[in-house]
């Protein structure tokens, strides 16, 4: 028995290279964790015992108005004693958040800490996963300090009660922004456009057909060209040239190219037109029209 007791610290020493004096370490006994809902009696709510060798397997649920109470007796070696540091350390493994709540320790090692959600930093209330509750006991001198996870604390809160978000100003990259462009102007379906184009284009043959029905003809063309060939050719030519100039203005010319050309065509139309129309007048006087 004695031999076994002697070899255990030695093994520890060899494995962790502890100084020999650190063989006696801090620890605790008689530990309970209780969650007391608001208004419940002293013994109401959840209560569970735990020990340093046997942490609670199930997460402790800690809701909005509950009071979490952890009591234990601190020990150095196996005798109850008051340490310099006795903390309940809540730690989120994911984000690395940590906060400690010191136990109120009596001279005989009896320690107790009470906690409500109001005392937790806001960051903890936003955590989805249970946090790690650890007991940290340590003091000056050579005794080995104790730090171990004893239970998981699940911080539950009413999802309908909003809590302020914590987003302190920190320099970092900002979300990307891509400008949303206005929609490009849209066109109706090409079929509809083509149908209307066909209707518009059909107006010209319809007009021609109606005129022919009413007896429109070009029977005087040979007579007119025999009487005044040059004015008629120039007058018709200048009218067609006008349309050509407008076409070029539409496609590529600018106003300064268009105006001189239009002036030239206009002068030709004026001069040749008066002669050509004189010839038309002559035909009227001759009773041909």
């Amino acid at each position, binding site marked *: 028995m004695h031999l076994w007791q002697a070899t255990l610290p030695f093994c520890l020493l060899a494995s*962790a*290279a*502890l*100084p020999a004096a650190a063989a006696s370490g801090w620890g605790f006994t008689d530990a309970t964790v209780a969650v007391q809902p608001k208004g419940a009696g002293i013994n109401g709510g959840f209560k569970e015992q735990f020990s340093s060798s046997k942490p609670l397997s199930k997460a402790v649920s800690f809701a909005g108005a509950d009071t979490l109470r952890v009591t234990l007796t601190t020990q150095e070696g196996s005798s109850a004693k008051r340490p*310099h*540091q006795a*903390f309940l*350390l809540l*730690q989120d493994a994911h984000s*690395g958040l*940590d*906060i*400690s*709540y*010191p136990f*109120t320790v009596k001279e005989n090692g009896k320690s107790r*800490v009470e906690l409500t959600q109001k005392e937790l930093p806001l960051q903890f209330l936003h955590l989805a996963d249970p946090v790690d509750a650890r007991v*940290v006991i*340590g003091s*000056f*001198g*050579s005794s*080995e*300090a104790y730090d171990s996870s004893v239970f998981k604390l699940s911080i539950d809160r009413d999802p309908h009660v909003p809590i302020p978000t914590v987003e*302190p100003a920190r*320099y*970092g*990259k*900002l*979300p*990307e*922004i*891509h*400008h949303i*462009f206005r929609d490009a102007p849209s*066109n*109706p379906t*090409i079929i509809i*456009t083509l149908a*209307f*184009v066909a209707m*518009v*284009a059909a*107006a*010209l043959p319809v*007009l021609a057909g109606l*005129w022919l029905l009413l*007896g429109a*003809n*070009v*029977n*005087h*063309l040979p007579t*007119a060209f025999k009487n005044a060939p040059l004015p008629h050719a120039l007058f*018709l030519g200048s*009218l067609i040239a006008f*349309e050509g100039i407008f076409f070029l203005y539409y496609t590529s010319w600018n106003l300064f190219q268009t105006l001189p050309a239009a002036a030239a065509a206009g002068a030709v139309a004026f001069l040749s037109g008066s002669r050509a129309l004189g010839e*038309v007048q002559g035909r009227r006087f001759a009773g*041909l*029209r």
Partner: protein
Amino acid sequence: MRWCLALLLCCFLAAVNALSSSGSRLLVVLDDSTEKSSFSTLWSDLEGRGYDVSFESPKSDKLSLFEHGERAYDHLLVLPPKSKGLGPNLTPKHILDFLNKDGNILLALSGKSATSSAVSSLLLEADVHLSSDRSAVVIDHFNYDTISAAEKHDVLLLQRPGSLRPDIKAFFDGEGVLALPRVAPQTLGGESALVAPILRAPNTAYAYNPKEEIPAAEDIEATGSQLNIVSTMQARNSARFTVLGSVEALEDKWFSASVKTPNGQKTTTVNREFAKQLTAWTFKETGVLKVGEIKHHLVTDGEVALEDLNPKIYRIKNETFFSIEISEYSYDKWVPFELPADDELQLEFTMLSPFHRLALEPTSRTETSTVYSTKFVTPDQHGIFSFRVNYKRPFLTSVEEKHEVTVRHFAHDEYARSWAISAGWVWIAGLWSVIGGFLAFVVVWLYSAPVADKTKKTQ
């Protein structure tokens, strides 16, 4: 004569080479010469890196941070004075003025004695808070030096800090253990983006006033990683203010001390390297960014002609190219700036608020710089826009570039032609049918012979 000049120039260049990016005049404020000798390695290291170190006592009448209204020194290192306060020449206002004029400050505290209220109020200006009685010391019963502090546990042994966040460059990392004796802890205000911790206490640490027996539960203000051992404030003008909780960590004794954690091996401290990293960062030898050439132009194939570079005016929906060249100072030279893995250098195209915020990608590297660039289409909104690069990160000097350009509408001849718009075809067909009809009418009117029976009726 000529070689003499060349030699002089060489010496000058060598001296310039090993300098901080913002000057070499360093003032060390310390109490007396006995204190000075215990930091001799630090001084020789600083002088070896090209600093021009001068020492003054806080009580000295000659001590002045300014001369003719300008900074008399580029950097300031303040060791905790034994007397109360820093004296009439180093009031918090003087020190803040020094900071506002781009001077860098390394302020060391000590947990051995209470910090003066003058220093405490100076730190408050930087949103760095000391414990309420200003005489707390950080204790950790898990990470202490068993050789020198077996009883008191007030010599912390910590790993060098890694990067603060995955998107922040680590300037203080590396192997090895730091010994930090008798740390005066600081806590940081949560609201400011300018303050950042360099080294935090482990989560089992706590602070207490060693004059008190056992701290009552309600006396403990901050614990664990809320306690900072080294913290910084980089002002908006990129001047740096570093607070080191443990001045003793800079002493020769701790630069290469053998230490041992409760359940670890005996090792030698790396305080000397950490002191180098800390002073180098504070005095702007590292983490300094410089913007080189900024280019923007329309996206074209091949080279851009000089007259097309950085135009004053763009049109809406123009495909635009933007590039910025950034260098980083590293101890004695400019090197290409590399972004940390999770970080982005972002370009904003802004009129009042950003219309585009895009990541700039590294496209090419020169010997001293990296060129970051991106392409984007200008928004369909005319107005006065600006290309903005606003890169502010902890531990890096800020990059704030703003280049204004006009974005105009389409000109009258830049719209699509009517025949390209299918809805316009009906209108075009109508126009030409009118023209055709007119010409046909002219021909018919000029040359039509009257129909025989109709003329009879009228006659």
